[in-house]
């Protein structure tokens, strides 16, 4: 996929494929019933979160479990702005800005940490943010949550609006991911993943690149959170600062293939399909099934679907030597 960096990014085949997907998505939106429309919107939201997470967790290789923190910040920023009478589009822009600032602050603090410490730090941020949202009643309405004005129009029109808005966000995020993957910036991120010290030695501005990736990722996740908040018109801390979201998103990306361009999209699609087809029938075993999926992906396919079916070269490259597979055997 990234074998030849000089190859043009935009080829006729890819344009045709993109137009085809866009056509299918739009046609689906106008013809689907309410349930399918909602599932399609959920899928789009998951795809945005996965693509955004992939920039930090995939390209850069930093195990971030902070997705829910950005999602919640975006949802609350957007919701609070809308409640203050700010128009929808401006509220979303405000939420994106809030997410970017939050990411800049967090990144400057947490990106000095590596491995386990970074993972623990990002989880702690989710917990802290949820408690802050629960207890800062003056701003967030506390544990009761806040209501957000519902858009004018019939439920169906509103549904289609949010469906298209979310898919537009998918398109933008996907284009950005592809651009990053083929840019010098993306190359820096991959260097950081492989060996941070070496990346520093060859003259990559490591900390700046890490912060930039974190901010882009945080901005996109917050934006998705704001769109979600406007759509559901009611948010509460335990819903938007949900640690499960922080683990679902990496699991979906891993299913598709972390660090690839298409992986997050494919992972999100399969995961949401599985959820809609299987989980709805086992409501009491929701998290157990999620657990089984995670375990199965890790055991059977840690490199992700995209790589498994894409290049033979990859499997040779990552084939584990016996000394690495068993417990340090």
């Amino acid at each position, binding site marked *: 996929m990234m074998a030849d960096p000089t190859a043009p990014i935009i080829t006729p085949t890819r344009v045709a494929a993109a137009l085809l997907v866009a056509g299918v998505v739009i046609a689906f939106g106008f013809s689907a019933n309410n349930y399918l429309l909602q599932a399609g919107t959920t899928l789009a939201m998951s795809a945005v979160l996965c693509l955004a997470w992939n920039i930090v967790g995939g390209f850069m290789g930093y*195990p971030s479990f902070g997705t829910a923190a950005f999602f919640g910040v975006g949802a609350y920023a957007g919701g609070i702005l809308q409640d203050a009478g700010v128009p929808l589009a401006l509220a979303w822009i405000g939420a994106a800005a809030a997410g970017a600032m939050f990411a800049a602050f967090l990144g400057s603090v*947490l990106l*000095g940490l590596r491995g386990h410490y970074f993972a623990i730090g990002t989880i702690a941020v989710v917990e802290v943010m949820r408690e802050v949202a629960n207890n800062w009643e003056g701003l967030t309405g506390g544990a009761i949550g806040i209501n957000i004005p519902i858009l004018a129009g019939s439920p169906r029109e509103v549904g289609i609006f949010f469906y298209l808005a979310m898919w537009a966000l998918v398109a933008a995020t996907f284009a950005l991911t592809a651009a990053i993957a083929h840019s010098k910036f993306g190359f820096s991120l991959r260097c950081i993943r492989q060996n941070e010290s070496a990346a520093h030695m060859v003259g990559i501005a490591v900390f700046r690149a890490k912060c930039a990736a974190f901010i882009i990722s945080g901005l996109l996740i917050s934006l998705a959170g704001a769109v979600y908040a406007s759509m559901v018109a009611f948010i509460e801390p335990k819903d938007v600062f949900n640690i499960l979201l922080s683990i679902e998103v990496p699991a979906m990306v891993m299913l598709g293939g972390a660090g690839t361009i298409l992986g997050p999209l494919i992972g999100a699609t399969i995961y949401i399909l599985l959820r809609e087809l299987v989980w709805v029938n086992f409501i009491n075993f929701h998290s157990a099934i999620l657990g089984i999926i995670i375990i199965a992906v890790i055991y059977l396919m840690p490199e992700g679907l995209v790589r498994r079916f894409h290049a033979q070269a990859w499997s040779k490259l990552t084939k584990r030597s016996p000394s690495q597979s068993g*417990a340090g055997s």
Partner: protein
Amino acid sequence: MIAQYIVNGILIGSLYACLAVGFSLIYGVLSIINVMHGSFVVLGAYITIYCTEYFGISPLIAALIGCGIMFVFGFLVQRYLINDLVTAPIFITFTLTFGLDLLLNNAMIQAFTATPRSLTLEYGSITILGVSLSIARLGAMVLALVLTGLLYWLLRHSQMGRAIIAVRMDHHAARLLGIRVERVYAITFGIGTMMAAAAGGAMATVFPITPLLSGVFLGKAFVICVLGGLGSVPGALVGGIALGLLESFGAIVFGSQWSTTVGFALMILVLVVRPSGLVGRKGFE
């Protein structure tokens, strides 16, 4: 009044130390973050509660039975579910234990329901210099401290303890010396699980326990281990008591609803300023 807060802080802090020490040991030796730790605590608490209430066994014996069962459970989980991936990157092992935890926790909610249960022991309380102490909680504290101390002693003086420390220092070299590393990993995981169960048994005398609390216990283990230094037994003791005191006094200063947040905020601060923890990480205990 202040004395009462200090005593309460130390009481709960000792339980926290016991809760965190297993988590810390597993991190130190296997270098994985065990997300199941909170669920292990809850499971240990349930075994203690059930044995006490249905079989009428003394709570101390019940807690020890819980420890035994959980040791075997932890041993088997590591041997058959985690061991193959123990050297995989942190992201993989973390996500794996998270997946296992989702499964375990869901099973516990189905089996025990989410209704909180507690171990009510009518042993009365004593008052020393105006500080009131419940005998049951005092007993829980003693159990927690004795087990933590015993673990520390065993790590330094028993053959298996020294093997664990050797694997921790360098598992390649340990293998060359004839130590069966996989076995040490599994035993270490079993011991960590056992300590979680002991902490759970002790916790049951203080808090009503429900499977929904596993995330809270895991969060406490995170905070304590980072405060004291990930991977060290004395660090867990210092971190546990520090957190107990912090929560006790944080409740006065900020109000009790903020106590979790204060702990996590302090943890992020320590992570950034002094990632090796308050006690440092020089020893291999």
